[in-house]
């Protein structure tokens, strides 16, 4: 039997030291109220309707590619603009214009709000994968599902949901940005990966894919230097600027840089990281500089508590 199948010792706490506390009744009442709350009906006066209708096909399914007549469909509700579609099937596109917004219910795992001037396509919907393509524009996804079940492809990355809420926008070339508001998202592209936690952003670029993640409250000089680095800036002062500005929380950025700089600069990044946060037990300098995957993973797991 694997030793990790065992239950650990309970430690110095004895049974009864931490009493089980009864959850207040108000919690269930609040849950029920939330579940029963219906979306506020939108005001649809005649003038407003005519105006909306005049912007014909503001939201529309462009074409149907599904190979099976019974292809799964996701419900679409209109948040603003013309209500011309109520669902989207595998293979179909949904497009909003400058004055339209729509909400897609992603199977039974969450919602995607489609912002104006956005074009998305439902690529797959199955128990093992729900997948959208974001060709351009912006979406906000709120997903509560097992990790890696919901994916969004953009021209320069694939956003892999790890249980989270996030916004992602892109132009047709792939330049864009991801902002995570809850949980984690993995941005993946051609073997390149950026792990982005709540409160952090990550830019994407055509040809180079996901950039280096950074917290939205990082200093402007750090963000500027990182932007230069991600754009291919290799001047010594670019990395120096990042290292100088980094706080404990910015070890998120530095951890990603470890594998993105040359061996000489890796030492500088490593030393700045260990200045900010002591190296945890089980992670050695040698393994970290060698980019040993297990050591880097273990280090990230420890650092994540500071993020």
């Amino acid at each position, binding site marked *: 039997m694997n030793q990790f199948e065992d239950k650990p010792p309970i430690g110095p706490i004895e049974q009864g030291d*931490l009493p089980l*506390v009864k959850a207040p009744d108000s*919690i269930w009442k609040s849950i029920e109220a939330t*579940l029963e709350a219906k979306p506020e009906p939108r005001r649809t006066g005649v003038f407003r309707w005519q105006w909306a209708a005049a912007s014909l096909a503001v939201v529309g399914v462009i074409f149907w590619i599904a190979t099976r007549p019974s292809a799964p469909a996701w419900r679409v509700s209109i948040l603003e603009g013309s209500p011309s579609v109520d669902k989207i099937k595998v293979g179909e596109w949904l497009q909003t214009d400058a004055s339209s917004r729509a909400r897609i219910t992603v199977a039974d795992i969450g919602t995607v709000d489609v912002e104006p001037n956005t074009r998305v396509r439902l690529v797959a919907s199955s128990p093992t994968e729900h997948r959208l393509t974001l060709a351009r524009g912006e979406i906000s996804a709120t997903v509560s599902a097992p990790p890696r079940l919901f994916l969004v492809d953009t021209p320069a990355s694939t956003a892999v949901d790890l249980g989270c809420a996030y916004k992602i926008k892109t132009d047709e070339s792939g330049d864009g940005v991801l902002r995570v508001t809850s*949980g984690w998202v993995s941005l993946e592209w051609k073997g390149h990966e950026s792990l982005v936690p709540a409160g952090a952003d990550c830019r994407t670029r055509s040809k180079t894919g996901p950039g280096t993640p950074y917290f939205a409250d990082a200093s402007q000089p750090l963000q500027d230097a990182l932007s230069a680095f991600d754009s291919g800036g290799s001047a010594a002062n670019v990395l120096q600027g990042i290292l100088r500005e980094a706080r404990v929380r910015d070890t998120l950025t530095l951890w990603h840089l470890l594998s993105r700089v040359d061996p000489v600069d890796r030492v500088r990044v490593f030393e700045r990281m260990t200045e900010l946060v002591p190296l945890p037990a089980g992670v050695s300098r040698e393994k970290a500089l060698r980019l040993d995957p297990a050591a880097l993973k273990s280090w990230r797991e420890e650092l994540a508590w500071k993020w």
Partner: protein
Amino acid sequence: MVVSDPETIEIIEACRRGDREAFRALYQAHKDKVYSITLYFFHGDIAEASDATQQVFLKLITNIGSFRGEAEFSTWLHRLVVNTCLDGSRKNKSRERPADPAELMRIADPASHDEDLTRQQVAGRVQAALSSLPPKLRMPILLRYFEELSYAEMAQALRCSAGTVASRLNQGHKLLAQKLEKLRR
């Protein structure tokens, strides 16, 4: 919180069909443990714990259709609890502080207020010692205490290796013992 009996599996199936009464039964079965973990995690802050518990069950109820099998359900529920607590902790970093033992004595169910004062004081000390631990050490201890999870199950909930769980628990228990010793003096 481990889902193993056929009755609970049946409840989950009913929940997946949208049966509100089944949702209520599921909530009733797990609410006190989830609430207790969040309450002790958030230093006895009732508002924070209530909000976190509500979030956990709303996410669970809204997305129960995506659960496949009992193991996935229990893993999912533990993850929801961990993620919700850690998200809350990150958002309110400035409020991360150890609580006062006297304040924590009031966490217990009102029914226990009539119990022996000495026992309440012991409970207050344990809670204060736990509250002073960093979140990464506090959460595994709470999962072990209330959910009786194995190393492997905790590793899934915390998204780290079982070895890391063992190391954190070991470190947490040592610190807890030291702090309890100080509080007893």
